[in-house]
């Protein structure tokens, strides 16, 4: 041991001590990383579920819920590892999965964001790069006002928007995202004209609405149900196909004669050229999951979503249709890569 240099003696042992401390507190965490599935059937090794958005967000909750339910209900025997690869509005994770061509052990959560990215930002990650596996749920948008707002119903809002064009302010996250697309549809269908103010996150929109800085806002139900229950906000309408179970008194825009529907999809994609058997395996697994009671109770009701399973082929058709719809809205809004010469359209 005499060969060990002198400088190592003091601090190296200290580093060791530190390492041991680290090990001590995380050892319990280490045990949670599950072992490889033992059976011979696919999937015979750990599956990576890529979430292209940040932890704690809607996609992340979706991923964690479905993987835990798949494991708990014994539908899938392999362990699924969730990896958040956020960035670029979901394109960073998308590009990563696209690069895993033919890999049967990679999955990715997908939202309508992939369509708008392509159309608004001109990103080169497009939805038809991937293998659609299943659509599982639809997230609605609610139109809300503060409790003391003069708008008692959606009609009042439309009227104000017609009488004083651009004076009523509407808060939403980002431009080209779901909130602005909904407003574009609403304006197109009703002839009202509102002033859209873009914020960074749903939380900022809510704060601005509660503080009276904007007049009206759109938000996903699970973000604001707490506010609605406490009476700080009121919902004027829901932009879905049908009313929400938790808010039976809130009408849909359609009922009010405004043909505006915006529902955000939640589904799962595989990398390009995934084996058809693997696709089928997962599609079946998700189908079984979406029919379970736990799914309905702990995910759909809890997060106020609409359950909507679609198998691979129908999912693809749905995406094609949705793409066309979003494309026309975005043209209407004058957005899109052609409008910004700094980014050549690809």
């Amino acid at each position: 041991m005499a060969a060990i240099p002198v400088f190592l003696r003091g601090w190296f042992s200290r580093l060791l001590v530190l390492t041991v401390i680290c090990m001590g507190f995380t050892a319990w965490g280490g045990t949670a990383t599950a072992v490889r599935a033992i059976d011979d059937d696919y999937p015979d090794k750990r599956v990576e579920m890529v979430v292209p958005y940040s932890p704690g967000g809607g996609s992340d909750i979706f991923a964690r819920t479905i993987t835990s339910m798949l494991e708990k209900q014994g539908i899938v025997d392999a362990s699924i590892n969730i990896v958040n690869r956020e960035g670029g509005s979901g394109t960073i994770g998308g590009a990563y999965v696209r690069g895993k061509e033919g890999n049967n052990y990679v999955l990715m959560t997908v939202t309508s964001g992939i369509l708008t990215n392509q159309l608004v930002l001109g990103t080169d990650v497009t939805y038809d790069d991937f293998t659609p596996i299943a659509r599982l749920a639809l997230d609605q948008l609610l139109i809300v006002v503060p409790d003391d707002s003069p708008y008692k119903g959606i009609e009042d809002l439309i009227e104000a928007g017609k009488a004083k064009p651009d004076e009523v302010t509407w808060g939403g996250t980002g431009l080209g995202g779901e909130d602005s697309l909904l407003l574009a549809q609403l304006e197109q269908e009703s002839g009202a004209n509102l002033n859209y103010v873009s914020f960074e996150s749903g939380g900022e929109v809510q704060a601005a609405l509660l503080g009276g800085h904007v007049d009206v806002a759109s938000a996903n139900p699970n973000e604001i149900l707490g506010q609605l229950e406490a009476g700080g906000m009121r919902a004027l309408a829901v932009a879905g196909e049908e009313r929400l179970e938790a808010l039976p008194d809130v009408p849909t825009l359609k009922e009010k004669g405004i043909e505006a529907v915006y529902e955000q999809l939640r589904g799962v994609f595989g990398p390009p050229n995934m084996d058809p058997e693997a696709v089928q395996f997962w599609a079946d697994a998700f189908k079984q999951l979406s029919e379970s009671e736990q799914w309905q109770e702990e995910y759909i009701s809890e997060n106020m979503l609409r359950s909507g399973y679609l198998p691979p082929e129908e999912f693809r058709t749905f995406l094609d249709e949705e793409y066309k719809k979003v494309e026309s809205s975005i043209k209407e809004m004058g957005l899109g890569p052609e409008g910004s010469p700094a980014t050549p359209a690809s």
Partner: protein
Amino acid sequence: MIETLESLFRGFAVALTPTNLLFALIGVTAGQIIGALPGIGTVVGVSLLLPLTFNMDPTGAIIMLSGIYYGAQYGGTISSVLINMPGEAATVVTTLDGYQMARQGRAAKALGIAAIGSFVAGTFGVVMVTLLSPVLTTFALRFGPPEYFALILLGFTSLSAFSGTSIAKGLVSVIIGLLLSTVGLDIMSGRPRFTFGEDWLLDGFSFLVAAIGLFGIGEILDGMMNPADHPMIRTSLSWRNSLPSSVEWIRSRGAMVRGALIGFFVGVLPGAGSTLASFIAYSVERSASKHPEEFGKGAIEGVAAPESANNSASAAAMIPLLTLGIPGSGTTAVLLGGFLLWGLRPGPLLFTEHPDFAWGLIASMYIGNLMLVVLNIFAIPLFASMLRVPYAIQASFVVLFAIIGAYSLDNNPIDVLIMTAFGLIGFFMKRLDYPAAGLVLGLVLGPLAEKSLRQSLTLSRGDWSIFFTRPISGVLMVVAVSALLWPLARWAIVRLRPD
């Protein structure tokens, strides 16, 4: 009041059960370590452990995760002080004086005052959360885009604290930071700027990736030019060493109080956050100080003020989260995701519907802060003894941590290259005396400033008077504009006057 105290006692009953105490201890220890590792920030830390809490009791889970959150604010100081590499966004300012103190052999003192300041301010923050949550919520909601804009302008006044010999160089650094901050997706117009069609530029430059490179790698490249200038520092392993002397204590007392107050009021605003709080606190401290010339050269107040500010800000950020269900920062957004995962509905009814959860969390924050200060005072000499490693060896480890930190921020290999590029920039900036902190300031405040400016003008439909007709915004604007223009005016007068 009596009711509040009763609820708090109930909260303590929840937080003091052995399991919840254990969760708090695990949380703060993990936070301490995660915070100390550059790049592995709170967001990453909380999200790493979030999945493990999936099946836990929500109260235990939130106690553990929020422990990581405020524990990381303590831990982030360690790498800032020891290797000039901010472990957390909110500890960037701490590097300015903290690292200088370490080079003078006062690393333990810097870490000690940071821990004490964090404890004082963190506890102050929790007391305020306990007593004044509803009032403060109303206050926070009065801040709309124009108020944020004025507040951020105030943040820019800290520029004068960084510019060393040349104001021109300071301004250039800030402007380059602002310019870099415009890269990426512009949320106001919904179009990408300066991304040249590259998807990886859509998010722009992550401020932490830039800071790790500019400070950490830049400093190391500079230091390696003359490793002999960095002699091994003999520090004693006694914990007494980390306690401030009476002179130091007198100097930092005011800094802690001011830092705690500023941090709290900035932190309670959703979206402003502890980073802005630490910048403003540093700037205020420098103007309040009797010896502003010592700032940037190892002034102990320069560590005490921002460290107190970021801790009380992180306590304050719990207010919008608990009372409204609105996350005020990246980390609280992750915590909010946790609420949903555990089946709790965030919002104004949280306190009434889940009192054990809300008050248990608040009580655990008192306990957690106490654990952290004890943990720190005793562990500091151990951390500080890392400086006894020969400089050239330290340097290699700094590089490794920087690379791993940059990568693990988003699991993105491109961030490693960006970080390295910023490292080279940081090296040249240091050699040519351009303040890298100015660039970071621009990068942090740029997007906030531009966004709130454009939001305000959209709200007012192009009318600039919106910044002055609203009371809070008007007052802040007058303060910020005069604070910004005064040094410029003075500089112009001095320069233009014939000798």
